């Protein structure tokens, strides 16, 4: 799989913290962050998810000139076949060597992991796929490992 370059920027961190409703100054206030234990702005623990912004082919972002499976004139822009969202997110795990900081330029490499299946009462046959992503900084040091598990369901999940 191709490597993705992920520049970590202060504005992006501020916006991410806003979206999760986290008002901690260490995510947006450089002066306050300088006086804190970590000494500078850092990124929230799940910020690396935003690496999707830097994947040119990311399938869950509409792109000019390409049909999008969400609604427009009709309920789905992809006619004649069931639209796929690529499944749901089942698990996410992070191992941290150090926090991410503005100015980091990360190289992210994703390796396919295990695949397994399970029957469920709420959604039929479940197919799980694991992906492991290593994040290295501008000096080549490993700073974080992410392990995500996606699941494709046979039918929509019963809210129960």
């Amino acid at each position, binding site marked *: 799989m191709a490597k993705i370059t992920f520049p970590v920027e202060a504005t992006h961190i501020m916006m991410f913290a806003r*979206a999760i409703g986290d008002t*901690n100054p260490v995510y947006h206030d450089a002066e306050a962050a300088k006086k804190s234990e970590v000494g500078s702005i850092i990124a*929230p*623990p799940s910020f690396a998810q935003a690496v999707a912004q830097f994947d040119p082919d990311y399938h869950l972002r509409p792109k000019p000139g390409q049909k999008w499976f969400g*609604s427009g004139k009709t309920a*789905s822009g992809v006619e004649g076949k069931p639209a796929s969202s690529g499944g749901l*997110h089942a698990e996410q795990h992070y191992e941290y060597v150090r926090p991410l900081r503005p100015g980091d330029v990360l190289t992210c490499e994703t390796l396919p992991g295990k695949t397994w299946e399970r029957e469920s009462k709420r959604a039929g046959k479940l197919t799980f796929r694991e992906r492991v992503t290593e994040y290295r900084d501008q000096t080549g040091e490993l700073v974080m490992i992410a392990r995500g598990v996606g699941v494709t369901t046979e039918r929509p999940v019963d*809210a129960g």
Partner: protein
Amino acid sequence: MALKASALKVGDTHSERVVENLSRTQIVQYAGVSGDYNPLHTDDVYTREIAGYKSVFAHGMLTMGLTSKMLSNYVGDGRLTKFGVRFTNQVWPGDTLDASATVEAIREENGQKLVDLKLSTTNQDGKEVVSGSATARIDA
């Protein structure tokens, strides 16, 4: 403020309300910043008519982010060595979520004190939406 091993014991719990009456707009805000514009999170027409759900729902990663707010407030900034979750139920617009961390172990590794935490985030009906675990560096 960092936690101190000397002041912690197994079974200690910290909990916070991490979102009240989750809005569709906050879900869209998360879509914009994370880059995940999946219509299941951003497009009610698609989600009801094509995907077969009652409405859009939150990204699992938004719920992980909400849970991380409680976790960082408890263990301090930049203290995590591990953080992992399973998404056990969907989070819908209008949900109110409480996240908690419970001390499972206090230990030492290469001279560094660590705390292992069990995580749980539940909705207004008491249904668990995230279960997980985390490990953080703590002071002696």
